[in-house]
């Protein structure tokens, strides 16, 4: 099973990299971009084939190291 962990700065926490990308898009005349948020994606190949167990374990990984929950939110997708 594969776990995809997406990590983004929390809503309300200013994202300087997203802002810089937004500026660049504006400068390139791409109109109609309201907001840009930049995050990271971590892909984990797991040995487990039990979705519930895998979800619990990846949640723990996200809380303890993958994300800094002071400033970041995360989502986990299992496929």
């Amino acid at each position, binding site marked *: 099973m594969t776990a995809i962990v997406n990590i983004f*700065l929390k809503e309300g*926490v*200013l994202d*300087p*990299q997203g802002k*810089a990308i937004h500026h660049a898009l504006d400068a390139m005349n791409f109109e109609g971009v309201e907001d840009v948020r930049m995050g990271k994606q971590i892909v984990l190949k797991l040995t487990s084939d039990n979705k519930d167990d895998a979800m619990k374990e990846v949640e723990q990984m996200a809380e303890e*190291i*993958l994300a*800094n929950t*002071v*400033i970041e939110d995360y989502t986990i997708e299992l496929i």
Partner: protein
Amino acid sequence: MKHVAVLQFPGTNCDLDTKYAFEKLGCITTVVWHKESSLPKNTDLVVVPGGFSYGDYLRSGAIAKFSPIMQDVINFANNGGKVLGICNGFQILTEIGLLPGALKRNIGLHFISKFQTLKIVNNSNDFLQKCDKNEVLNIPIAHADGNYYIDEEGFKELEANEQILVRYCDEKAENVVVNGSVTSIAGVCNRNKNVFGLMPHPERALETILGSDDGIKMLEGLIA
């Protein structure tokens, strides 16, 4: 004579400057490799120095928290031992939860390396006891992730408990935006005032011939 332990991770690059600084101030200083499981006996102060531990992979300071030595550093801090984190050391101490808040990418995305004036916000702590409130010091900064963030509730607590140590300011002690930090915060301490963190590098400001010796009175407080 005080015993200072300076931690060294793969990627740390201010360990020897920090060792030099505390030796200059008359301390017995030991550099401790991160794989050690315990601090030297009689340690009076632990310094987590600057650099790029683990290449800043994942987030600055994120991986270092799982180094073997850190468990003993946490025990040391929880027993009231004094810990100072400088730059990457500050990032590590927030990641590990010994200090509140977090450090994000600078608002302008640039790595900033220059002398910067700082204002002493609170001196009711060991670290800044030798400095005057509102005193302006000239100390180098060198970081890409120094944009201090804390939520509103956390900020109120910092203010109420006099945990804000220093702010970026101009020569007239007015706050300036350097990296986007909440209210220009450059350093904070924990509630018990035994764990300190700041982005600027006092260990690089020890001799006037190199620009400033204002770092001395900061570091001296910790070994008084």
